[in-house]
């Protein structure tokens, strides 16, 4: 079989010309201003209207790459980095290699490049600390994560049991849910519906719904702990501020503890954009809070039902196959001993 080309250098260069951010001469890039010229539309009862279908798909990494010092690329730098990556031909899959044992994302429109995605010049989603990196971890955080990794390692390989698999392969929760809500890799879509009393965010995969009351109620008792925590929201001017606590700690965010507190801010800054930022406050894990900005761009629905567990034949097949292979190997070994 020949190499399967997914991206040629020429095609990449042609496509890079599309829609690169442009700075006027003398402009310096700025973070989204708190008060811009944009006035968001309002619901009939006077709240800023965040409703619609949104995506947070992005190529920007959470942390600034090690070989980058600045907070923003120039348009030329960005073009050069992407061209270099294209030349790397990292997207092509070689028959007989692990990446080749997969359906082709582009056939199903699931490649990040095939849908709306956020594109900008920032070199990291993290805006604080200024170096664009997650702050140092505390000793407790290091210890907890090492113990966790060891416990996971003891569970064995992904074909040994359901529980030895990652949370997304178990259809428990995916990156788009959080909070904080990160790019899921594909189907990175959300639907926001508002009422006077609640903001509802439907995360496409795995049909996770965040129900955020706006009535100022307290967080529940500490015994109530959830994968997505419990969220409380309020309007601060035109910004929806959401505070989430009561995590169960089973889906750590970059090593977070169950005591993590996430503060998210949603501000509609354009007809087709919500600026979404999150601050992670987890003194049990990091020496200081840290903040990232991840814009959400308007996309379109529907969000078709993502019933994951119900259709999770893959996990089942993997376990069945592994047990069969072991049985075959054991039978052959026995045969070998007999001969």
């Amino acid at each position, binding site marked *: 079989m020949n190499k399967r080309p997914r991206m040629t250098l020429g095609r990449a260069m042609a496509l890079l010309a599309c829609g690169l951010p442009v700075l006027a001469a003398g402009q310096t890039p700025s973070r989204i201003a708190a008060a811009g010229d944009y006035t968001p539309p309002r619901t009939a009862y006077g709240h800023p209207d965040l409703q619609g279908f949104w995506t947070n798909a992005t190529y920007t990494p959470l942390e600034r790459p090690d070989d980058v010092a600045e907070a923003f690329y120039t348009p030329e730098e960005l073009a050069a980095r992407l061209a270099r990556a294209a030349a790397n031909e990292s997207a092509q899959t070689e028959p007989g290699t692990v990446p080749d044992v997969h359906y082709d994302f582009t056939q199903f429109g699931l490649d990040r490049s095939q849908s709306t995605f956020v594109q900008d010049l920032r070199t990291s989603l993290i805006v604080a600390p200024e170096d664009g990196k997650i702050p140092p971890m505390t000793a407790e955080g290091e210890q907890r994560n090492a113990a966790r990794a060891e416990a996971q390692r003891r569970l064995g390989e992904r074909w040994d049991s359901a529980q030895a698999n990652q949370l997304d392969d178990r259809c428990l929760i995916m990156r788009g849910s959080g909070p904080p809500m990160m790019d899921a890799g594909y189907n990175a879509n959300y639907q926001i519906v508002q009422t006077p009393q609640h903001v509802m965010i439907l995360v496409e995969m795995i049909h996770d719904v965040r129900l955020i009351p706006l009535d100022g109620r307290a967080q529940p008792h500490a015994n109530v702990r959830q994968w997505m925590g419990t969220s409380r929201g309020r309007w601060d001017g035109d910004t929806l501020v959401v505070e989430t606590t009561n995590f169960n700690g089973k889906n750590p965010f970059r090593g977070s503890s169950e005591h993590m507190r996430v503060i998210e801010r949603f501000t509609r800054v354009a007809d087709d954009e919500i600026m979404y930022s999150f601050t992670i406050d987890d003194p049990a894990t990091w020496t200081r809070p840290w903040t990232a900005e991840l814009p959400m761009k308007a996309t379109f629905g529907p969000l078709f039902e993502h019933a994951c567990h119900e*259709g999770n034949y893959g996990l089942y097949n993997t376990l069945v196959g592994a047990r069969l292979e072991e049985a075959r190997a054991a039978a052959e070994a026995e045969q070998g001993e007999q001969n």
Partner: protein
Amino acid sequence: MRMGVAIVACSAGWLLLGQPTSAHHAFAAEFDINKPITLAGTLTAWEMINPHSWFHVEVEGPDGEPVTWMIEGGSPNQLIRMGVTKNSVPIGSELVIEGYLARDGTNKAVGRDITFPDGTRLFIGGSAPGAGGDRR
């Protein structure tokens, strides 16, 4: 008009970057990297489900009798946004599948490429209804 960086939505065909690598490894655990396979047959059903869709394809078996294969494909959700429905790929369509055999010994494979007999790709880049990219 906001000062500063113009943030632009763009659906340029950029690189495939950052697809979850764990997903690839999960597939390599389900399917056998040493057993590439090519099949040709007729579609009897397309389960438009998640996390991955499944094509049921009737293939002529070694003894000439029809054998049903299950071929794993991608989530249908983006295709649905692009107008693909359960009627888009008619039952009886001839399909050619290149992929890898399942490790569980049954008639299953992951469909690395799914095409029509003339080589056009199913959905994106092919002649099937719904192909052509982001509908906006």
